[in-house]
């Protein structure tokens, strides 16, 4: 039967590399502290900082740092809206400790914190 066939087919779907988001909302992640030259889209104030994934941005997107050099194929992964507490970003932050910063970060800039 078609229904049975569909269910079986769905059970065996294999997702391509990069199709599955590596991170889910609620996970704690660290922004890499690597130092590129020439073009980047992760501000210095974010490097090495720890935040929480707020949302997975859909659909996947191109790596904008590669896109800046005209490379627009084969590198689609997810961006993540990450939230960070302001006091973690700025020493002596002049505001409420509950204030937050939200920013999109490409998957290759994030690592899961154990």
């Amino acid at each position, binding site marked *: 039967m078609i229904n049975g066939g569909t269910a079986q087919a769905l059970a065996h779907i294999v997702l391509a590399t990069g199709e599955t988001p590596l991170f889910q909302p609620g996970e704690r992640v660290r922004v890499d502290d690597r130092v590129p030259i020439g073009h980047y889209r992760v*501000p210095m*104030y974010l490097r090495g900082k720890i935040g929480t994934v707020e949302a997975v*941005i859909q659909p996947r997107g191109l790596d904008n740092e590669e896109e800046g050099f005209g490379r627009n194929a084969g590198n689609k992964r997810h*961006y993540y809206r990450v939230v960070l507490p302001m006091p973690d*970003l700025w020493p002596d932050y002049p*505001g409420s400790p509950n*204030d*937050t910063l*939200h*920013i999109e970060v490409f998957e290759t800039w994030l690592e899961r914190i154990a």
Partner: protein
Amino acid sequence: MHDHDDHAPETAAAEPPGFYEVLETAVRELLVEQGLFEAAEIHRQIDVLDSRTPALGAMVIARAWTDAAFRARLLADGRSACEELGISFYDDTGLIVLENTARVHNLIVCTLCSCYPRPVLGLPPDWYKLKPYRARAVSEPRKVLAEFGTVLPDDVEIRVSDSTAVVRYLVLPLRPAGTENFTEAQLAALVTRDAMIGVVPVRLPEPGDLP
């Protein structure tokens, strides 16, 4: 606000084009001659840009204030909801609409350049693109808000969204009290560009203001 330059009469006797204006003309003409695009596409895109103003965003906000189901769709997928109202997105950007509440106030910035929800708000003001706002909105948002006359208590969380990629932001401000009987058009007339950036709330006009 913009300054009126009393020394520059708006007549045909304007200054000759400067270096960069001539450069733009040269580059554009050469590319058109090479067949890479047509001159008409530039004219068309100028018309597209001219058609995008904060009035579009205000219409979206007013609809969200008066239609709870639309509001939910807007918060789930900002671009699709705008497209429902006929606001096309001519580029690949997405839109996340950020809802202000009694406990949360949103502010948008692009520290790296000038990302801004152009399809729904038009072009950003100069101050949004200049260093003082871009540098300080992420590190001292309350001081920045105060410079716009906006002071929020510490129990309101300020959320600053820094655009760096393909998503753009629009703030859905709080609907002011006393507008319960306003029509959608009257509500839209209250919503300013700066309220949708998040530097000011939406305010009722002062007594004596023109309708």
